[in-house]
């Protein structure tokens, strides 16, 4: 079978190193608790880790646009549906 340019093992290890460093920063933020910025920073770090794994380890950045759209559609639908559900519950539930 013909394989196109996936990352090399060294690049995979480098990405794992980045993931570990980002996780260490996340855990540090938990203990530092820098106020309102904490949640925002944790979400940004989570998204970076998410994109790194999906893009490089799952090879989505090397795949066809169709597969990209298929996965992003699921993620997008999940995010929108459950955001609406949460906002609805928060609006209508006392306390």
């Amino acid at each position, binding site marked *: *079978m*013909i*394989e*196109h340019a*996936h*990352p*090399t*093992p060294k690049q*995979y*290890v480098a*990405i*794992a190193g980045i*993931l*570990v460093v980002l*996780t260490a920063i*996340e*855990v540090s*933020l*938990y*203990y530092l*608790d820098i106020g309102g910025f*904490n*949640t925002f920073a*944790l*979400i940004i*770090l*989570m998204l970076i*880790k*998410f994109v790194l*794994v*999906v893009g*490089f*380890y*799952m*090879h989505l950045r*090397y*795949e*066809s646009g*169709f*597969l990209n759209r*298929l*996965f992003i*559609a*699921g*993620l997008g*639908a*999940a*995010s929108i*549906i*459950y955001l609406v*559900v*949460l906002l609805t*519950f928060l609006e209508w539930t006392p*306390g």
Partner: protein
Amino acid sequence: MTDTTMHASTSTGIDSGKLGMWAFLSSEALFFGALIANYLLFKGRELQGIHPRELLNIPFTSASSFVLLMSSLTMVLAHAALTREDQKHARLWLLATAGLGMAFIGGQVFEFSSFYREGMTLATNPASSSFFVLTGFHGAHVTVGIIMLLTLVGISLRQGSLSFGKGLNLELVGLYWHFVDIVWIVIFTVVYLIR
């Protein structure tokens, strides 16, 4: 030529197995989205009994997260080894991935049993229920992944080699495994780290 264009026999030009797996993972995003939303609904509420936030052991779960991240690395190293036709190392990396997955599950069993000892059960309150359902379903997915990895190794030993071919193959199992990892990346942040 890319992975996706070499399967010219399909109408999409994409291997059917891979297309099916991505569609499945897309639907799994909706499944876990529901469980995460359910947990968020009860996260900040005043409830009777112990709230999961009071018992979470961040250092221990951080170590578990590290183990699962490393299992994603060993999984891609198995993929890279098979791309080089290095069957022996591909099998070894798959076994390492399964071993790390088992370590993660062991950690989850320890965490759940310690929560039960502290008095937080599935029925304590809606927050504990949503916590156990969310993390429990994730653990079940990891367990299925371990079974798939070991099955793959078993099949390869029986047939003599691993392949990227039809049926249960390393690429599909890898996609599933990495998905389980990204779900944990979200759970670790949303459930454990965000106060």
